[in-house]
């Protein structure tokens, strides 16, 4: 399997893993009364900043581990450069991810209109981040498999 294709599987795994851990910790703290996610928006601001920070660090670590394992298994130390087809696939995948994100945003507004509490918007942010990433990486895998 092509290096950049494998990287997409790693991205999907890391996206689900990091979001699941974050959601579990936040929910657990909310249930035990350590934080209140239904009230103050400042809490969400802090939570989102922590999530972004941890997410970036965790992804870097996961990518390094992936590269080391890949180098050991395939004995290819160098990361293949992205060529024009890789870039084209990336653009198509970003387009699909943009559609997904727009869809979730519209759905969120609709849910707000029918009475969803405002803190639901922040949950929608997290969900849209995950779904967008899944759509982007799944699209890339699809296009790589399709050959386009």
């Amino acid at each position: 399997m092509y290096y950049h294709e494998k990287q997409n599987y790693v991205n999907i795994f890391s996206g689900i893993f990091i979001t699941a851990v974050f959601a579990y910790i936040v929910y657990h703290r909310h249930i035990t009364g350590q934080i209140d996610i239904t009230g103050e928006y400042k809490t969400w601001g802090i939570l989102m900043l922590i999530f972004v920070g941890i997410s970036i660090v965790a992804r870097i670590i996961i990518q390094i581990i992936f590269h080391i394992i890949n180098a050991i298994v395939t004995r290819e130390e160098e990361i293949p450069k992205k060529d024009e087809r890789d870039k084209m696939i990336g653009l198509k995948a970003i387009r699909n991810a943009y559609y997904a994100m727009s869809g979730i945003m519209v759905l969120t507004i609709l849910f707000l209109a029918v009475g969803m509490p405002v803190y639901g918007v922040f949950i929608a942010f997290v969900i849209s981040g995950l779904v967008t990433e899944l759509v982007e990486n799944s699209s890339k895998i699809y296009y790589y498999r399709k050959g386009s």
Partner: protein
Amino acid sequence: MSSSQIQNNIRRLRFDRNEMTQQQLADAVGVSRQTIVAIEKGNYSPSLELAFKIAREFGLKLEEVFSYDEPD
């Protein structure tokens, strides 16, 4: 099955050139082997720059490597 109207005879040209591998051609023109596979199958239409590079690698004109079939 080809999904593009741009056809090519890269496979035959590679064979004629001492059975040049896809990897060798890919290295020569600066793309991945997967991109050469996709071009050969007609799943991916290369940029003009890459098409010229491939043609030049075989020492041929562009139209001797690639052809365009008008849609019906």
